[in-house]
């Protein structure tokens, strides 16, 4: 569904991605793991057309979407929740959700999407009129994911959805991600919480300083605990 071919991206003077190739199959959760500075966020931002690629291409459903502009990427069916949530803090929860559906004008479709995201995160429905900036960290992340789902994406990209969230809510977020896949969408996830991410993912890539150094099914990556130690600096539990 998504094919990233030999992507090279510069962040200022220094390269952040040195030729990354990656595939995301339909109806799968694919996770990109790696420590800080590995290039995970750069990868998502380049797919979303927020950053320009030096070379390489991004194909989505067999169409070249490299650098077509962030708002057009959304219309093609890719939504992204950025790292650190970036909800619209001065607006209500409902307004945030409606902004998420800005590419969808049909009011009936919007109602449908609202019902869907409320079934995923019932708590948002209780907070509909609340100013988004006053929500807890976990609720803000739920809102960020719900907002991205409002455009009815075929591919949902999540940049560190578990960052800065209470452990109890992390579990809920991952449950929601699985449920999104089970509803027929495809998920590309970037994470530092390796164990939780691999527990729900189908396939994974490991990035280090802008290169893919390992790939495999989630099970293979889970079992290769030495590799995890080596490349991600994680102590086995």
């Amino acid at each position, binding site marked *: 569904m998504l094919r990233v071919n030999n992507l090279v991206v510069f962040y200022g003077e220094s390269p952040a991605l040195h030729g990354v190739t990656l595939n995301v199959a339909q109806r799968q959760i694919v996770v990109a793991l790696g420590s800080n500075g590995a290039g995970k966020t750069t990868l998502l931002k380049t797919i979303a057309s*927020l950053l320009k690629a030096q070379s390489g291409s991004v194909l989505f459903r067999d169409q070249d979407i490299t650098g077509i502009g962030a*708002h057009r990427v959304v219309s093609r069916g890719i939504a992204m929740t*950025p790292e650190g949530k*970036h909800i619209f803090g001065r607006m209500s929860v409902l307004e945030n959700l409606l*902004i998420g559906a800005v*590419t969808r004008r049909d009011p009936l479709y919007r109602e449908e999407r609202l019902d869907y995201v409320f079934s995923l995160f019932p708590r948002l429905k209780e907070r509909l009129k609340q100013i988004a900036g006053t929500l807890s960290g976990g609720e803000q992340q739920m809102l960020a994911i719900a907002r991205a789902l409002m*455009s009815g994406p075929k591919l949902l990209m999540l940049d560190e959805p578990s960052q800065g969230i209470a452990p109890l809510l992390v579990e809920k977020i991952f449950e929601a991600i699985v449920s999104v896949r089970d509803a027929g969408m495809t998920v590309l996830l970037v994470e530092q919480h390796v164990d939780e991410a691999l527990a729900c993912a189908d396939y994974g890539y490991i990035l280090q300083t802008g290169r893919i150094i390992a790939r495999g099914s989630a099970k293979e990556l889970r079992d290769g605990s030495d590799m995890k130690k080596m490349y991600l600096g994680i102590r086995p539990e």
Partner: protein
Amino acid sequence: MEEILQILLSGLVLGLIFSLVAVGLNIIFGVMDIVNFAHGEFLMVSMYICYWLFVWFGLSPLFSLPICIAALFLLGVGVYKLLIGRILSAPMLTQIFATFGLMLFLQNLALFLWSSDYRTIQDPLIFGKKITVLDGVFLGVPQLAAGAGALVITGLVFLLINKTELGRALRATAEDKEAAALMGINTDRIFALSWGIGGACVGAAGALLAGFYPIFPYVGAVFCTTAFVVVVLGGFGSIAGAFFAGIIIGLVQIGFGSYFPAAYKMAFVYGIYLLTVFVRPRGLLGKS
């Protein structure tokens, strides 16, 4: 008693105009984080449009109003497309010089084309007419039209920003440009529209002023510096703040101008500016 009422009334009318000018300035600033130093010159351009439409076609400024709104909307969009859009990622100083340079360019263009003469529009429809509000309290018809017009247009802009889909996209872009783009908002289009709407506001203000205020190449400076004070007092990015602050500044300017030598009236306005900066830098309704 009549004197105080008269001052309140005149201050209110002037204040409503200030509000409208400041709302336009604030929309551009809120969305773009760029201060349009040429905002006053947009006002001047609008007033000259009224003037020439009156001289050539005898068109009353009241009827020129929609033309000015449309023309200044286009001017705003044009300035964005030709100038501002090219320096979005440039250092702040470059952006300041760009709008400052535009200000000097428009002022000197007006001087070159139309000389430094003060011109007035003596529109037979409204000029010199006034209504009696109470015994001894009068309001000129041009001023009445300007005050009412500014109030209505500011209200419409407020509704546009707060109650429509487009306004929601504007506010989202103002809050977080990258997140707005990720939602599918064409931020470049929103930037252009913010310049268009900001221009339309000041275009309307120019047409409303043209009915009773002298028109000359530097007229923008009078209103623009005051509009900056209004924006600071009301709070950067706040439409409602700019509205109330505009009325306050209008009342202060007319009030103090009536009881103290007129030369000092701006001292009180800038006194408010300094007080705001020291005591409440985010302004009356600004976000911290």
